[in-house]
């Protein structure tokens, strides 16, 4: 049967095949693409994403494709249920294109920690695409799909979006159902969207957002409005938090931000200085809370009921061998840190303290927005894409890649990255942060900036 959607399926298959050297995909099949096309064909013509092929990070469960979370412990695991977002994408007429490669269990900032090999940056294979949603970001940047789903716990869509030169949007925590997202840091995890353009990302986000009775942390809000680009930014106040513009900021990143700031001013926005004094505690706070929640979330991977089983002897030997061999070194480190910071004698010094510090970071944002600021603008990442292997020796060096994206995750507020330009051929991203549930304001501003900025231009 030849239909327009089957053509899309075939075209997507060809692009996926051509992009194989990136190692961005873990599972895809032409037959599955055809099945998606046929399913979408049966929908009415008005479906909002009709015919759009969308890549899905391999920590979002699907029935027809395996879900490995980039880990050996789930090699061959095929979920017996679909994540809510999969049902919603299909209801909107999208085609699930493939499952994408990621840092194992979404823990990482470079997609070098996958058990299935690292993902290569589409513009320079010696470099990383960012992480943990590097596979999804790379596919959108390479033009294989117009949009992709990733997940964020501490910036894992915004940061790769910045490295790869595409749009990455993290909604308010609770805006999108987590049912079917393999949990890493439950109070931080957000399914997030990559798009080639702001409009594409916005449309996908609108299709997947909404309360889900199967997710007790999803919030009841009116449906998101369609993107409405304003004529200008007159009347809008944009804050520039000084803690995000250190003196030693990478010159290419600084140049990209300066150009964008000038453009925002030209468009009529009022730019003001602001301080978020607890910013420097965000990464340490994150690296206590997220691993603690992760340690408990990953306890279920024991080889007993599903997944890849190892070891013989008694049941304890099964657990230890399965987990010791099945988890990679970064995941093991985080489980150990998480367990340590919750254990008797340490919980007060670490976990409880981190929760209190988190509140301080939340209050910094509230104070800024309460003072008349509509949005915050910052660089997304402290540098452009770094070389593979550059940061894998020191775990803390990798953690610091999240320094600008992690605070909004801790506060549960929406934030996004959009490409601002290139430095020595590598993309630089800028971040907008909005108050809770103000995605529309953020996306509208980003769309206007996108219109007035050549994201491929060299800024330095």
């Amino acid at each position, binding site marked *: 049967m030849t239909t327009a959607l089957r053509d899309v399926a075939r075209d997507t298959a060809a692009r996926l095949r051509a992009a194989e050297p990136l190692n961005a995909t873990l599972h895809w099949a032409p037959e599955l693409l055809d099945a998606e096309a046929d399913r979408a064909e049966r929908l009415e013509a008005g479906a909002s994403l009709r015919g759009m092929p969308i890549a899905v990070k391999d920590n979002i469960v699907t029935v027809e494709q395996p879900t490995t979370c980039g880990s050996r412990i789930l090699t061959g695991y095929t979920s017996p*249920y679909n994540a809510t977002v999969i049902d919603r994408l299909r209801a909107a007429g999208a085609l699930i294109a493939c499952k994408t490669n990621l840092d194992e269990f979404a823990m990482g900032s470079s997609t070098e920690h996958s058990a299935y090999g690292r993902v290569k940056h589409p513009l320079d294979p010696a470099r990383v695409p960012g992480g943990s949603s590097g596979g999804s970001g790379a596919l959108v940047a390479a033009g294989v799909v117009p949009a992709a789903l990733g997940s964020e716990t501490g910036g894992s869509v915004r940061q790769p979006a910045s490295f790869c030169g595409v749009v990455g949007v993290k909604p308010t925590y609770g805006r999108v159902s987590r049912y079917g*997202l393999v949990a890493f840091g439950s109070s931080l995890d957000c399914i997030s969207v990559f798009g080639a353009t702001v409009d594409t990302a916005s449309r996908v986000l609108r299709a997947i957002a909404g309360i889900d009775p199967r997710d*007790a942390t999803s919030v009841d809000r009116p449906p998101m409005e369609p993107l409405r680009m304003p004529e200008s930014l007159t009347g809008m106040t944009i804050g520039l938090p000084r803690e995000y513009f250190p003196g030693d900021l990478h010159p290419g990143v600084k140049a990209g931000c300066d150009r964008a700031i000038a453009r925002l001013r030209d468009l009529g926005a009022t730019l003001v200085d602001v301080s978020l004094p607890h910013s420097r505690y965000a990464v340490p706070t994150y690296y206590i809370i997220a691993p603690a929640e992760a340690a*408990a979330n990953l306890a279920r991977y024991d080889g007993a*009921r599903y997944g890849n089983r190892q070891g013989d002897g008694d049941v*304890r030997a099964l657990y230890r061998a399965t987990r010791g061999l099945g988890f990679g070194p970064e995941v093991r480190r985080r489980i150990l840190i998480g367990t340590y910071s*919750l254990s*008797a004698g340490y919980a007060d010094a670490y976990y409880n303290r981190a929760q209190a510090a988190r509140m301080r970071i939340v209050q910094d944002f509230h104070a800024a927005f309460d003072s008349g600021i509509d949005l915050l603008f910052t660089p997304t990442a402290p540098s452009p894409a770094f070389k593979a292997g550059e940061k894998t020796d020191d775990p803390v060096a990798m953690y610091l890649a999240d320094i600008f994206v992690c605070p909004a995750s801790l506060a549960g507020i929406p934030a996004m990255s959009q490409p601002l330009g290139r430095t020595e051929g590598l993309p630089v991203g800028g971040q907008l942060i909005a108050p809770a549930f103000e995605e529309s304001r953020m996306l509208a501003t980003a769309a206007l900036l996108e219109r007035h900025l050549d994201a491929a231009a060299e800024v330095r």
Partner: protein
Amino acid sequence: MTTWETVIGLEVHVQLGTRSKMFCACATSFGDPPNTNVCPVCLGLPGALPVPNREAVRLGVRAALALGCTIHERSIFARKNYFYPDLPKGYQISQFDRPLATGGHVAVESPERGLLAVSIVRLHLEEDAGKSLHDRVPGKTAVDLNRAGVPLAEIVSGPDLRRPAEARAYLVTLKQLLVYAGVSECSMEKGSLRVDANISIRPAGQNRLGTKTEIKNLNSFANVERALEAERGRQQRELENGGVIRQLTLLFNAGTGQVRPMRSKEESHDYRYFPDPDLPPLALSGRWIEEIRGELPELPAARRSRFGARYGLPAYDAGVLTADRAIADYYEAVVSAGADPKAAANWVMTESLTGYNESGRFSASAQSLAALLALIKAGTVSHQAAKKIFLELPADGADPHAVAERLGLLQVRDEGALETWVEEALAAHPQEVQRYRAGETKLLGFLTGQVMRRSQGKADPKGVQSVLVRKLESK
């Protein structure tokens, strides 16, 4: 020679009587084929999330109110982290430092100390684990997750009990309260009520508590008492021999009556509790709590006392009739239908309960029983005959008079008929008549019996007696 004081506290887990599980919509029914009442949530599959069951919360609140607890309008679910084959997520969703309820008490009749107020430290909600079977597959462990996720209420008493017998009395009272409140079946046999007992001893007069041990795997109230007796003895012997009590978990062997330590290490678990980030705080409105309070029936102690006062029943009878809410309801229905309270009490405690204990239902409707008791009172049927009639009464409320008639059991009270039988009996026993008239008045019983025989049991014994006496004393 030291006098030792025993200190006992009990942790009881009850399965709340909901139709679906605590955090997912799987059925809670007992006895289904293994791993058929399961879903991504209770299997602990990647990506699954919990959503709490409103009815489980309602029953938990109702149980806490029945125990006189303070309900906390905001409570928090927490993860209790440990590994075990029947714990699918590697943690149990429970409550830790912000439980549903605290600060209640239960009035328990101690065999030696009179009425005790046993404190309830807390009641919290949690999910059950699955079942591990060790002899199903040789050399391996078989796991059934049907039970994983079933709602439980954990009820923790204060260390207020001083004797194993008091522990048993506490359990009987607690079960009765929870069954009355309609929150659980509380069956130890079916596993819907489980008990862990904590016990320590100390020299009488010492304030500081001794080291306690915990006893698990108890399957009846009697065995709770036996296990505590055995462990108290063991601790006493140990201390009197100069030894020291180590904090252990013990298992009770019902066959040998002994306790022994579990083979695992004796260190206490580090459960690393933290608030479950998948579950926002559990919020209860004051209005809902009051609505649930209104669902509580009159509780056993109050009902017992009212039965004593209203129906003039002795304490023992009131106790038997209120042991079970269904029995109490039935008894009151019989009295409302017009029966004399004492006659009804006697009948329900004997004839009715025999049938109820066997079948779980009352064979006669309350109206029928009341009518039957009225027939006895009026002398229309004898007590013996009534027992036969009772067995023939169907549950849908037939008229006992009609049944009596059908069975030919209506008592004869017609003077003429009675006189005839009496004359016959007197004529047949002239020596006894003479002896009676000479002063052996107790022969009246024998003569009455003779008349009854001649009437094939149908004569009204009271009428017979009065005719007999009249005839014997005249002349």
